[in-house]
């Protein structure tokens, strides 16, 4: 038996994370507490910083130091992390942020679940930045998606967010963790050229520049201002800015198929499809089970990757599906993306929203399924 937050910790350590900086906040605190206990045992370091801005900065600093790094937070803390999350996106430093969502805005409902940070996880920091967001709905997924998050971060030099929630973070489930030997672990790409020939931001074909930490003969500069391949400010250079911002996005777009994970259930003959993610997907599954028992042809698309948004999965729906229901514990955030993905499909998109800190129940979903059928 393991809690979701604990599974994040186990996943992180299995993926090679050896640095954590954080600041206490419900419902994410267990991650910090467990990291404080476990990291020194595997030779890593934990630090409780003075706030979330500093935690995010410390995580990036440690990652520049060559160590896989992670932080965890919720609501108000996630907002504070945005400043340096943008820095990580801009200067391409691998790092992982676990956001165990709670009800907002502001301090809101500190211990109750919500899915209100979907858009903030994508657009929370200023500027048109790249980011990857993964979303677990079970304890096991907390484990595997944290590993995946670390791997993507290291592979693409991007901040990756694990968007958990108070339900998934706190629920206890029986999980069988894979053997350490079975886990794929990605290390950041090292330069193949000697220090004299190294340009820290000259990207390979895949859009990702090789990365080596300091102290190994490669001395270089990092700046958050618009920068050239040499890593130096080119603050008002239009051409450099154009190429940089495009590359930062392209490196993710090129790897969509590796990044995007979705799960389909009973989709083949479905007339009603529920698009769900996070804790809400749990209710969706049980609603579809019941619907099927009652002869209703309902199916599920579960998104484990929220950003980049898995629009390609909707191509499979064809013309048969009449309605796509999008239950979310917010006022309707991803539903907009679903509508966009289905703009050439006659299927109707129906939101189901709940913002009172209670989970959307299977019954609520089932009722809506019956209503739209």
């Amino acid at each position, binding site marked *: 038996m393991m809690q979701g937050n604990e599974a994040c910790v186990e996943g992180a350590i299995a993926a090679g994370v050896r*640095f954590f*900086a954080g600041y206490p906040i419900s419902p994410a605190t267990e991650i910090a507490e467990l990291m404080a206990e476990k990291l020194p045992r595997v030779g890593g370091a934990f630090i409780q*910083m003075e706030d979330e*801005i*500093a935690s995010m900065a410390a995580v990036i*600093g440690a990652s520049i130091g060559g160590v896989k790094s992670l932080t965890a937070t919720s609501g108000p803390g996630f907002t504070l992390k945005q400043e340096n999350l943008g820095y990580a996106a801009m200067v391409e430093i691998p790092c992982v942020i676990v956001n165990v969502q709670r009800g907002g805005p502001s301090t809101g409902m500190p211990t109750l679940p919500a899915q209100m940070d979907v858009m903030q996880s994508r657009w929370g920091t200023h500027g048109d930045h790249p980011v990857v967001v993964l979303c677990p709905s079970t304890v096991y997924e907390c484990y595997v998606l944290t590993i995946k998050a670390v791997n993507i971060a290291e592979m693409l030099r991007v901040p990756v967010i694990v968007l958990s929630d108070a339900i998934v973070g706190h629920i206890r489930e029986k999980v069988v963790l894979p053997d350490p030997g079975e886990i794929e672990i990605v290390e950041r790409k090292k330069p193949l050229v000697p220090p004299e020939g190294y340009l820290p931001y000259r990207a390979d074909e895949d859009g990702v520049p090789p990365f080596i930490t*300091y*102290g*190994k003969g490669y001395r270089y*500069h990092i700046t958050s201002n618009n920068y050239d391949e040499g890593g130096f400010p080119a603050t008002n250079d239009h051409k450099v800015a154009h190429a940089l911002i495009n590359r930062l996005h392209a490196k993710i777009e090129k790897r969509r198929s590796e990044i995007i994970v979705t799960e389909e259930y009973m989709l083949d003959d479905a007339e009603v499809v529920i698009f769900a993610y996070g804790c809400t997907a749990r209710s969706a599954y049980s609603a579809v089970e019941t619907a099927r028992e009652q002869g209703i042809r309902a199916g599920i698309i579960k998104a484990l990757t929220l950003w980049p948004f898995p629009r390609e999965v909707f191509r499979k729906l064809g013309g048969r599906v009449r309605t796509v229901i999008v239950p979310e514990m917010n006022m309707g955030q991803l539903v907009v993306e679903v509508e966009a993905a289905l703009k050439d499909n006659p299927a109707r998109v129906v939101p189901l929203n709940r913002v009172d800190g209670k989970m959307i129940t299977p019954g609520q979903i089932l009722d809506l399924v019956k209503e739209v059928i």
Partner: protein
Amino acid sequence: MAVHVDRYLRLHKMPHIWCPGCGNGIVLGALVRAVAELGCSRDEVVVITGIGCSARTNAIIDFNTFQTTHGRALSFATGFKLARPEMKVVVVTGDGDGLAIGGNHLIHSARRNIDITTILINNSIYGMTGGQHSPLTPAGSYATTAPYGTLEPVFDACRLVEGAGATYVARGTAYHVVLLQRLIARAISHKGFAFVEAVSQCPVGFGRRNKMRTPSEMMRWQKDHAVTVKAAAGMSREQLRGKILIGEFVNRNLPELTEVYGRLIREAQSRPGGE
């Protein structure tokens, strides 16, 4: 003879972008010479900055360098140092960067006694953004956001970090550049959180608006107003009014964070269940 700084510069980044007579170059020279004097290798030194004119110090020096977000350099440095305790970490910050937006990080870095050397270039103003008042703009001075003169008092950055737990604290000026270099060298060799305030001049953002029309006038002000800690011991309060103390204020040895954490790691790993 002096160490020629150009040996440590990224020559393709020169001439640098600072205004004529800006004290940042003098402080940077003192830092580079201090590193050279200590015989550190370029590869083991990491210089981290935040945002502001002060932050431009590291792009032009051939060490390991990164510029971070406004006020946060010490937090980045804390993560870096914990990840790489063997590296010599130096943070260069400004009076706005280090004391306004970054004040809390400064206090806590000092409290942790983490082995980071912080050089705070105090030019009494926000230079990069064009001359707004900072926490160290003397009361009554003019700034673009204090067109009638600043109303707020300043605080003493050295006493602040001393109170917060820094184990090395000193102040120099751009004018007293030989002393400044010596203080920076001591700060870097010190094991623990070391803080050096470098009183400097921003002729463009501060001097112009405050009846000091040239860089030399501003440096003369430093010369005339600085009193060494030693000399101050024999002076009355009245005599010290309006003066700035220079020299070493604190130099003590206390447990340093990365060393203490290193010990914790060794103990945790030797326990059953450790790797």
